[in-house]
């Protein structure tokens, strides 16, 4: 077969814009997912039995339902109940964040519970409130310990953003499908795409590993 990369060269602006969208929705879903994760993780750890059970139901449900289903449901079904209309990118970011948030929550909870109970008691004994103790004493140590899991969740956010192509979010996967469909150069485009995603995810994963090795001592108490 002959390899022809001309579609990549002529459509590079279109594709690099799509790469921008991939980075954008990954970053936003990571940010929202992290906020959900810290809230849910902290409330499950310190919020008592009832909250733990309720939020645990959310977390386990997201662990059980495929992201594709969450995306499709959020985009097509949710607006019918809520009586609103969502554009694809917003629906994509919501679904990705809600899904990722559950995994973040598990990571945060594991991090928080790994910090020994004496740390909390010492903080309370020094006159801090519980919130203050969590914010100033527990969370900083837990964050360092969570770093390896957070790193792999970052790469998951990028990889999962490709699934948003099924609801036509104009990200890299979707736009490449369009170019491939127009030019019939599936082999070149999908191979190039493999390389691009690899270059995004692999250095990120290794970088976080390195960072962790340098700061791991800060998380030990």
């Amino acid at each position, binding site marked *: *077969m002959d390899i022809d990369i001309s579609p990549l060269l002529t459509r590079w602006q279109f594709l690099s814009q799509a790469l921008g969208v991939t980075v954008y929705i990954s970053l936003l879903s990571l940010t929202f997912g992290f906020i959900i994760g810290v809230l849910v993780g902290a409330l499950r750890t310190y919020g008592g039995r009832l909250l733990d059970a309720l939020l645990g139901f959310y977390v386990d*449900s997201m662990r*059980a339902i495929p992201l594709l289903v969450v995306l499709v449901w959020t985009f*097509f079904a949710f607006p019918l109940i809520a009586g609103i209309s969502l554009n694809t990118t917003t629906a994509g970011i919501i679904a990705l964040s809600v899904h990722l948030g559950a995994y973040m929550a598990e990571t945060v909870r594991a991090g928080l519970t790994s910090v020994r109970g004496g740390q909390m008691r010492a903080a309370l004994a020094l006159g801090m409130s519980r919130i203050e103790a969590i914010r100033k004493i527990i969370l900083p140590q837990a964050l360092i310990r969570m770093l390896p899991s957070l790193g792999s969740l970052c790469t998951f956010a990028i990889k999962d953003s490709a699934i948003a192509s099924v609801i036509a979010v104009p990200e890299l996967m979707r736009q490449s*499908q369009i170019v491939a469909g127009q030019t019939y150069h599936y*082999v070149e485009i*999908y191979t190039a795409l493999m390389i691009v995603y*690899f270059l995004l995810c692999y250095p990120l994963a290794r970088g976080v590993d390195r960072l962790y090795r340098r700061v791991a001592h800060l998380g030990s108490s």
Partner: protein
Amino acid sequence: MTFHWSVIWEHADRFVAGAMLTIELTVLTMLLSLPAGLILAFLRLSRWRLIRIAATAFVELFRSTPLILQIYWVYYVLPVFADIRLPGLATALIGLVCNISSYNSETFRAGIVSIRRGQWNAGLALGMTRGQAMWRIVLPQAAMRVLPALATTWVSLFKDTSLVSVIHVEDLSYVSLKIRTETFVILEVLTAMAAMYWFMGYPQAKLVDWVHRRFKVAE
């Protein structure tokens, strides 16, 4: 707003058939990915550098790219390079197995490396060959340790099988999306799909938690 839940019952047999294929895909992929992952793990621990590098490259490539893209890639690229036309199901299976065996190989490798060096040395000192020491001493101990990680991979595999719908393999998500376009009953069909995945996946997630508690490594 009026609901048309009857549509679900009218198409119940198709939903069930889709769910069966989802389960079949999960089981088949895992059955193939366990030995494939073990072989990859051995190759990564090989004495020869070239083999190590090749195996590492394979594993890292499939761990660092989206599964949905891998499935498309196998679907479009394999027929061109290898000049074979496979049915959709086989294509999906190849994509899933490449992905899951990469994750499994990391799990197995971590398990093998976690067994202390002394176990190896003791096996060799007793006159075992390297292969014997691996099969009789190291692997049985590693097997218990990797169980929680394998269980986690199992559940994410169960969820990931939904991605084969993009190459028209008729699993639960493909069937549901198709019924949606045929009947225009969007909310009910999509909710039924999510509910079916939930009913299958939720007990599995709970089971994984139990496996994690039961087989936790305490050293």
